[in-house]
């Protein structure tokens, strides 16, 4: 056992000095490799953290949201539906919600505006997300005007700006009282944007959804699970775009590693011949080449993953922001909660480290099976 360890140590020693001989080539390879792992790992960490954030945000969301569909489109839902939904067994609470979008022509941004369940302030007051605060240069106790549906401006008193922890969902948010909302959009008192239901037993959700469709044929129930799935597919689609862009980088890397792997230089071949001639077995040479591939790919992998971690969780994925977060004007400024999925990291490992290491070994195996006698004649 001790001699086995010494043998590995000796061969690793030689591998390291071998690598330092072809410094330029190996450093270039290391940089390309690290960059690739960094980009892939960044996309992976980022989409995963966002999905997780979305899941956490939706944890307290209602089990079912009911919308009204008319002519295949979504329409405000009548207040009287609340009474019908209240009668369904298993439903613990029913509440009409008011929310919509407000286009701010001054800065060219879209805000989400909604009436919270318990708005602590009076009519004429507003609380705003930090994104809105940034673009409108509005802070607590400022006044901001919003243009109502009939063209008349309503002046709101900013009572609060949301904290940054909730910025992912609250960056573009405006919270107002119910009367102000109805005044702003001209929404009738008999209408809500949608209705939310809380259900005691999660297993009953599909049955309740079926009952809703039977009782209110023009209603469309959306379950929490469906919302979560939509979020996930949006993030998956966005990360898909990045991955598509990265395909070019991946291909370039494959070409580089294939070139390195398939083309052993005359010097490298001669060196393998010398090692065989002085008594190295084919397996010793493969072991050395294995370590050579492993040193490059493992260090690149670790550096790439580490840089991606810093990029995503400390700089909020500054490079991908425009594509992955998708806000038009209001970029949320927030820090994602660090979260790493071991399954994804190991997938990345097997897609980068393993193929490279194998690609390094195969041509060396070809070279290592030649007769050492050829060295005598060189």
């Amino acid at each position, binding site marked *: 056992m001790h001699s086995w360890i010494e043998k590995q140590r000796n061969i690793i020693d030689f591998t390291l*000095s071998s690598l330092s001989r072809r410094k330029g080539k190996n450093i270039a390879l290391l940089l390309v490799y690290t960059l690739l792992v960094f980009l892939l790992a960044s996309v992976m960490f980022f989409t995963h953290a966002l999905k997780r954030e979305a899941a956490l945000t939706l944890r307290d969301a209602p089990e079912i949201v009911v919308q009204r569909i008319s002519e295949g489109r979504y329409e405000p839902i009548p207040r009287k539906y609340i009474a019908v939904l209240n009668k369904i067994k298993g439903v613990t609470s029913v509440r009409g919600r008011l929310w919509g979008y407000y286009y701010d022509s001054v800065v060219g941004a879209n805000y989400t505006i909604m009436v919270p369940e318990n708005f602590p302030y009076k009519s004429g007051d507003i609380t705003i997300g930090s994104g809105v605060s940034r673009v409108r240069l509005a802070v607590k106790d400022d006044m901001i005007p919003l243009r109502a549906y009939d063209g008349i401006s309503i002046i709101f008193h900013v009572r609060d700006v949301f904290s940054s922890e909730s910025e992912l969902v609250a960056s573009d948010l405006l919270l107002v009282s119910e009367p102000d909302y109805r005044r702003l959009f001209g929404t009738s008192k008999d209408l809500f944007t949608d209705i939310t239901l809380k259900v005691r037993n999660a297993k009953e959700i599909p049955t309740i959804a079926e009952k809703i469709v039977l009782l209110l044929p023009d209603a469309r129930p959306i379950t929490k699970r469906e919302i979560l799935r939509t979020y996930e597919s949006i993030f998956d689609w966005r990360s898909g775009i990045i991955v598509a862009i990265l395909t070019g980088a991946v291909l370039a890397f494959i070409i580089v590693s294939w070139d390195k792997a398939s083309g052993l230089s005359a010097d490298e071949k001669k060196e393998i011949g010398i090692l065989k001639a002085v008594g*190295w077995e084919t397996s010793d040479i493969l072991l050395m080449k294995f370590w050579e591939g492993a040193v490059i790919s493992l260090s690149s992998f670790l550096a790439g993953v580490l840089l991606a971690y810093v990029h995503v969780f400390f700089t909020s994925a500054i490079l991908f922001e425009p594509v992955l977060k998708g806000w038009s004007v209001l970029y949320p400024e927030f820090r994602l909660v660090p979260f790493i999925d071991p399954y994804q990291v190991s997938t990345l490992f097997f897609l980068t480290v393993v193929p490279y290491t194998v690609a390094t070994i195969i041509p060396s195996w070809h070279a290592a099976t030649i007769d*050492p006698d050829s060295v*005598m004649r060189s």
Partner: protein
Amino acid sequence: MMMLELKNIRKVFNQGKSYELVAVDEVTVSLEAKKITVLKGPSGSGKTTLLSLAGCMARPTSGRIFLGDRELSSLPERFLTEIRRTHFGFIFQQFNLVKGISTLENVMLPAYPLGGPHSALKKHAHELLELFGIGGRASSKAEWLSGGEAQRTATARALINDPPVIIADEPTAHLDTKLSREFMDIVGRLKEQQKTVIIASHDPLVYEAAVIDRVITMRDGKIEGLDV
């Protein structure tokens, strides 16, 4: 150390092709232990091929090679490597040092796969370099060495695993007269250490040296004469 015997050895390159070459043709010879034997002959006479066959670097097309009672020519590659590592030390015509690594590392190379303690191995390599008067060049890169230094480094490398047989192919081809004589002095020291040395050379400084026990003359792949 046992005697090395080659019986009816034939080595053909590119067999069956129009440019087939018979490098060694039905050679039978015994190489005695603890003696210095020189294979002499012009270029293309088959010296180097016979040397590589004797050192288990290549397999004969036909014929058998014995190390004592053990037949080597039928052994699988793994065992041949093992024999090569434990029984033979090689000094090549071009020295074949690995460029970019230090002289010391070059000397240590053949011992790496054996898995001996690294510090002991390093010490032994240093001792060998000191023995050949190039201890001061231990950390120099192989490509910075002069011809004589490279030659001595190659010799130290051949001795690192303490093999009983040293095989040298045209060891003085790239050395001037003074350095060639110095090399023959080293060969004399190896003889004192009871090593078997087999040298292929067409340099009179080698085959006429007093230290040589036996000269085998080759021509066209055959043995032309044996001088003892």
